């Protein structure tokens, strides 16, 4: 018996979902139809993929060299952030900070050493951050594994990435339809979707419908009574502008975020262009003024600018009836750190692990909604931490608790379903100037000499390891050679 999945959407969310579902479930007799709506991408659009994407690529059989070749993207080891008010820039690395000292967690020792006059910043103890500062990769090997996690993500120009996923999906056997407008047909009694009609044509019927249409939510937004939770009170900026600049001669292996009290500008390096994202407040700054400000802050000429409003919000039931929302249709995030692609991936991964097995998917639906709510709230908190600490915005309750616990003891209160590792929370809080007023007293028994030795050993390792690495440019060129 064939099960029909119909995905209505556009761009990366549509094609990544279509490819992943088809790849995993074709042998189980699942047919996938993708109904493609007109793209909303501009040449400036970019994804800043988190390290987790590599695993999904591997499942899809996507080779790294081929991905970077086809998209002309680049590697990224994290974000270099220049906070408002002229504070020192800090690096938010995809890898670990420090390594155990005397068998214990590194961070409390660093906190204590700083209190007693240590000069070295947190990022000095991160091989990933230091490699990024030196324009080098940080490739995991046996030594780095023993030291701590080293990970990287990608900058993926979105048009090329979506096109590559589309080719993959079609190759895997996804059926494609194209549409400009969508009419949803519902079962009059149950309210479930029986079909979608594109541009007035014949209805496309299916068993499960996926809404990957972005914030417009053409399927799930049409369902009666599926409300949203407004997150705008945590996110003070309401407009995003994307634009393109010439590529850097030598490609930084990270994204750069430069902020003032009322806006920020992010630069994402790629092989053919630099992708610039600028966020600001619409009623304080016109789009023209924002473009000028972005160009000034980027120090680069900008081209092809497109401005759109942002309104962070989470749909209360991302899976409602026989319709599952993936990506911005489920949760519209603030543009900071470009988390959208990661949210798409989380939606796909959890839909796959809960793919309905019976007629009534009530249990799967409840679990999907529970876990995606938890996952999305942790991502929201990570973004909101930036605004709470750098722009004095309101913090969600769970974040306020984490901030208070960090202030009191330098700890990251453990929470389920966190996409960001503890080290990244520490780097974000520390970098934004959140002070830790104490550390666990249990480390006070460690002799100062042992702490100093531990710190020196880590700095030495980081320095040596960074120098062993290829430069980003050389590594990309080498990879290009392999892909050819």
């Amino acid at each position: 018996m064939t099960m029909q999945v119909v995905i209505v959407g556009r761009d990366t969310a549509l094609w990544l979902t279509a490819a992943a579902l088809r790849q995993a479930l074709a042998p189980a007799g699942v047919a996938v139809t993708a109904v493609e709506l007109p793209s909303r991408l501009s040449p400036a659009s970019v994804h800043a993929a988190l390290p987790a994407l590599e695993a999904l690529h591997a499942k899809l059989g996507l080779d790294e060299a081929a991905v970077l070749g086809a998209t002309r993207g680049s590697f990224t080891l994290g974000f270099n952030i220049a906070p408002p008010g002229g504070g020192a820039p800090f690096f938010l690395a995809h890898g670990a900070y420090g390594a155990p000292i005397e068998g214990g967690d590194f961070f409390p020792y660093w906190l204590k050493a700083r209190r007693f006059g240590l000069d070295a910043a947190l990022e000095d103890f991160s091989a990933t951050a230091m490699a990024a500062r030196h324009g080098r990769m940080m490739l995991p090997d046996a030594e780095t594994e023993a030291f701590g996690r080293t990970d990287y993500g990608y900058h993926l120009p979105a048009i090329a990435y979506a096109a590559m996923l589309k080719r993959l999906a079609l190759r895997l056997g996804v059926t494609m339809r194209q549409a400009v407008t969508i009419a949803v047909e519902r079962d009059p009694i149950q309210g479930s979707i029986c079909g979608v009609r594109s541009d007035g044509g014949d209805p496309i019927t299916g068993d499960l419908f996926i809404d990957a249409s972005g914030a417009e939510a053409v399927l799930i937004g049409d369902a009666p009574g599926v409300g949203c939770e407004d997150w705008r009170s945590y996110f003070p900026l309401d407009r995003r502008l994307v634009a393109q600049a010439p590529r850097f001669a030598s490609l930084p292996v990270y994204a750069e975020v430069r902020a003032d009290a009322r806006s920020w500008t992010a630069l994402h390096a790629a092989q053919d262009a630099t992708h610039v994202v600028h966020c600001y407040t619409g009623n304080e700054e016109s789009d023209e003024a924002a473009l000028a400000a972005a160009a000034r802050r980027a120090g680069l000429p900008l081209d092809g600018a497109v401005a759109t409003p942002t309104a962070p919000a989470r749909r209360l039931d991302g899976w409602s009836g026989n319709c599952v929302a993936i990506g911005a249709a489920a949760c519209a995030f603030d543009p900071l750190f470009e988390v959208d692609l990661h949210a798409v991936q989380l939606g796909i991964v959890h839909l796959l692990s809960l793919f309905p097995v019976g007629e009534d998917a009530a249990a799967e639906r409840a679990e999907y909604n529970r876990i995606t709510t938890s996952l999305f709230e942790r991502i929201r908190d990570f973004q909101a931490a930036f605004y709470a600490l750098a722009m004095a915005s309101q913090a969600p309750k769970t974040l306020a608790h984490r901030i208070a616990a960090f202030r009191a003891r330098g700890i990251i209160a453990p929470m389920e379903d966190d996409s960001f590792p503890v080290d990244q929370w520490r780097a974000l809080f520390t970098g934004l100037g959140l002070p830790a007023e104490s550390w666990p007293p249990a480390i006070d028994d460690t002799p100062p000499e042992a702490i100093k030795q531990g710190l020196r050993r880590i700095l030495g390792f980081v320095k040596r390891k960074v120098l062993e690495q290829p430069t980003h440019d050389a590594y990309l060129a080498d990879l290009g050679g392999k892909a050819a």
Partner: protein
Amino acid sequence: MIEAEGAGDGRYHVVILGGGTAGWMTAAGLARRLPRDAYRITLIESDAIGTVGVGEATLPHIKQFNDMLGLDEAKFMAATRATFKLGIEFCDWDRPGDRYIHPFGAFGEPWGGVQFQHHWRRLGAAGREVAPFQAYSYAVAAARAEVFELPSEDPASIRSTYSYAYHFDSSRYAAFLRDWAKARGVTRIEGKVAAVERGGDSAAIAALTMQSGTRIAGDLFVDCSGFRSLLLGGELGVGWEDWRHWLPCDRALAVACEHPDGQALTPYTRATARRGGWQWRIPLQHRIGNGYIFPSEFTSEDEAHDALLAQLDGAPCGAPRLLRFMPGRRTSAWTGNCVAIGLASGFLEPLESTSIFLIQAAVTDLIDLMPRPGAPDPRLADEFNRLNAMHHDRVRDFLILHYVANRREGEPLWDHLRTMPVPDSLAHKIALFRARGTAPDYQFGLFSRDSWLAVLYGQGVVPAGHDPVADTFDVDLVDARCADFHDRIASGVALMRPHRAFIESYCPADEEVAA
């Protein structure tokens, strides 16, 4: 008034009230991890007050605690008359005559990103002959064979797929830790508390005055006084969340009995469902601990007494002791400068041997969140309370599962339990498993996915489906892998020694007990 020795030496003073398992685990943990030049630890206990010894069976986590202290396992086991534990056998819980083991270990192994239970169910659905789910656990097989060896550290070995805990005499464990802690600077004060003195702003506890007149001032007070909760519940009046509507048992009768001659030493705890409650059986080296837990609303003490004595393996050592309790937890276990640990902070019946784990988790959290000199920091207490609530709530759901998923039809207590409303968080977990065999999987706190699987399957909850991705694997290959796993268990278990023989060579109890 007499000030206690060492008062006012400038160190932060932690005063622990109560010297049972909770008190001495707290004292030992703090003494091990807190710098002695900054912290002073005093424990007050009275030989006249008995301790509750319901926590005689443990979970594998206790090894981490003992390792943190640096205890020698064999010495600790000999001193506490301990035996090994590979899991808990549940008898007659689903229906009379049924039995299953909740093992400390994995069921099968995941293949191709799909969890074992889906492959297993898929094989059955495809018409292949498969052994029962229980047969794919190394720990279950070893427990059934009544054998033991320490697990392998080689992750490639099937003998790395289980872990173990202990059965021990908890009053001897407390005594063992007392000696350990006293040797590391913990001051023990014998006697009873006569009065609690509040601080200037009255929110904080300033000092305890002993019946002897000695005044013990402190910065932080840890309430390990058991059910009575003299400080947090009694003095500060912190509320209690009552869970009797989910876990109605509120009484226990406990008695030890002799080992009958010639009986093998079982490396597992046993929990047997009975008409009016349930009975535990915990084998130690020198005797067997037994108890009958029951709800006073359904079962009288006399009934419980007779039922317990009717099902002992050997002659009872004395008369059964009655314990009264109320399942639930404190609304905030850390309030002001008072932290409750152990039964003073919450009580969950020993069905899954969680009492000592909950103490251990609280001690570990208290070490990390220990205040520094100065005013108490409510931010540290907030985090402690969040973690404490999470641990209790997660265990609670797991316990309720044993009761609600029963088919002992026609017995009033069990009919009631089967039909009672359960927490939404648990109803959701059961529904998801029923629908597709997906079991809970979270990062923090008890219990693991394998534990949930053991009890869900064991209690007769049957999934209607499995992960459809399992259907995409070659069925012959999966069949062969399952069979191979099963064979490897059998050949591994065949090489293990009888549990009793292992104990006799590894950690025999000291002479004085045998005499």
